[in-house]
């Protein structure tokens, strides 16, 4: 049975802003939070998101560096890496592909309750509508070790129901221009991939 997941506003907004910043590219990142104790069915709390890359997701070296640093930084905040997120390049591509599975599997090997979020590109154009939908889909690992989009929508809930409308406001004001991922940090060392001010 799959665990329930609670997605905090900060995590949701950061990851979608990352997707909006690079509309024609595949992007990925990791989710930070608190895993539930072994054997418990308490929800996994996804508290924050760290944007990683916006091109060449299938190359290993910088991913290794990024994961090591994010992991250290999360530990300092009393959190751990509880998941992975990805947006595919093409609008109608809703597959959790081989690269995504590989990275998610790796995160899962360190955190048993780890999940993944796949951005539903087809919903992005409704992001700033009157009733913005949730644009991520929960992907979980089943007992046969395959990653599948969760059939039960209720398995993923927003911690703050206002998250979608706040995100719409941020998207309207163009806040996605300010989001920074690990890849841009490699090009400009002063850019902080923790994006501490993005919610202020």
């Amino acid at each position, binding site marked *: 049975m799959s665990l329930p997941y609670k997605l905090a506003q900060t995590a949701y907004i950061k990851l979608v802003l990352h997707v909006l910043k690079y509309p024609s590219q595949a992007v990925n990142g990791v989710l930070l939070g608190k895993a539930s104790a072994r054997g418990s069915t308490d929800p996994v709390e996804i508290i924050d998101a760290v944007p990683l890359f916006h*091109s*060449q997701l*299938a*190359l*290993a*070296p*910088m991913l*290794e*560096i990024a994961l*090591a*640093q994010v992991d*250290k*930084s999360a530990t*300092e905040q009393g959190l751990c890496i509880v998941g992975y997120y990805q947006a595919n390049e*093409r609008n*109608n*591509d809703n597959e959790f592909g*081989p*690269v995504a599975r590989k990275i998610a599997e790796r995160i899962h090997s360190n955190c048993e309750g780890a999940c993944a979020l796949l951005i539903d590109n087809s919903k992005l154009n409704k992001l700033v509508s009157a009733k913005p939908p949730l644009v991520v889909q929960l992907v979980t690992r089943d007992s046969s070790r395959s990653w599948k989009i969760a059939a039960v929508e209720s398995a993923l809930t927003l911690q703050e129901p206002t998250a979608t409308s706040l995100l719409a406001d941020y998207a309207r004001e163009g806040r996605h221009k300010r989001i920074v991922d690990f890849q841009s*940090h*490699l*090009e400009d*060392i*002063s850019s*902080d991939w923790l994006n501490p001010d993005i919610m202020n």
Partner: protein
Amino acid sequence: MVSKTQTLKDLEDALENGASDTGTIQKFLRMVRELRVRRSELVSQHGAKLLNSRLLGEEERWLVHEQVCVAALDCQDLEVAVQCLKKLKAKFPTSIRVGRLRGMALEAQGKWEEALVHYEKLLAESPANANIMKRKVAVERARGNTHKAIEALNEYLDSFMSDVDAWAELGDLYVENLMYKQAAFCFEELITAAPHNYLNHLKYAEVLYTMGGAENVRNSRKYFSAAVDLTGGDSLRALYGLWTATSAIKALKGPKDPEDESPLGDLASKQIVALYKAGCPAKAKIVEACVEDR
């Protein structure tokens, strides 16, 4: 002297802050064409106003029509695109360049098959037309047919072997499809074509490292070092690569190579920490802990 990129940025800012006089728009469009950059939103938003302006001479008028048409297609503004296309077709009825735009209009409507048929027709008239061949690649990419896109790009490179952008695109496509060996070949070509561009060395090294195996990892370090060398130790990405490859080589099982023991890893980690202390002190502690871990 003000650089062209700065001029472009100033014009962009002016337009975003409400300027809408044809003079500014004309200058902006010229800059975009000259620098070969993509500013589709602004071009399609303002360019339409310029189409009938008296400011434009005969030659520039048609260049602007083409430019606005492409930008409008990018932004899914079919109405403006079709309007430009009609006028261009009336003016240049047999032009392949205009034919290409018509194909792009079909693409913008998701009519992939029709677009491909149209491009084949144009290629029958003008075989090995680089721009049309490239559109075929774009169509296959856009509809997610990566293997067909790879095929089309290879076909293109048979005729235009010296097109480095195409080699780079092919390499990226192979990486996306996890065909690392084929990707490595493309980046080898790129290194030969442009040996002083550190990005090619870096990409090649990252591909080799991802492939794994003792020989590839050892080789990757050589190319990471070249990238560090070419950037004078300023590229964080190259330094991280050099450090990771060196650590991975240390951890290799099996027969050792005399070159495995190398001071390069330590040099890289020292330089990495120095860059952080100067440019991003808040992260220095975490990074230091990470690069000392292994």
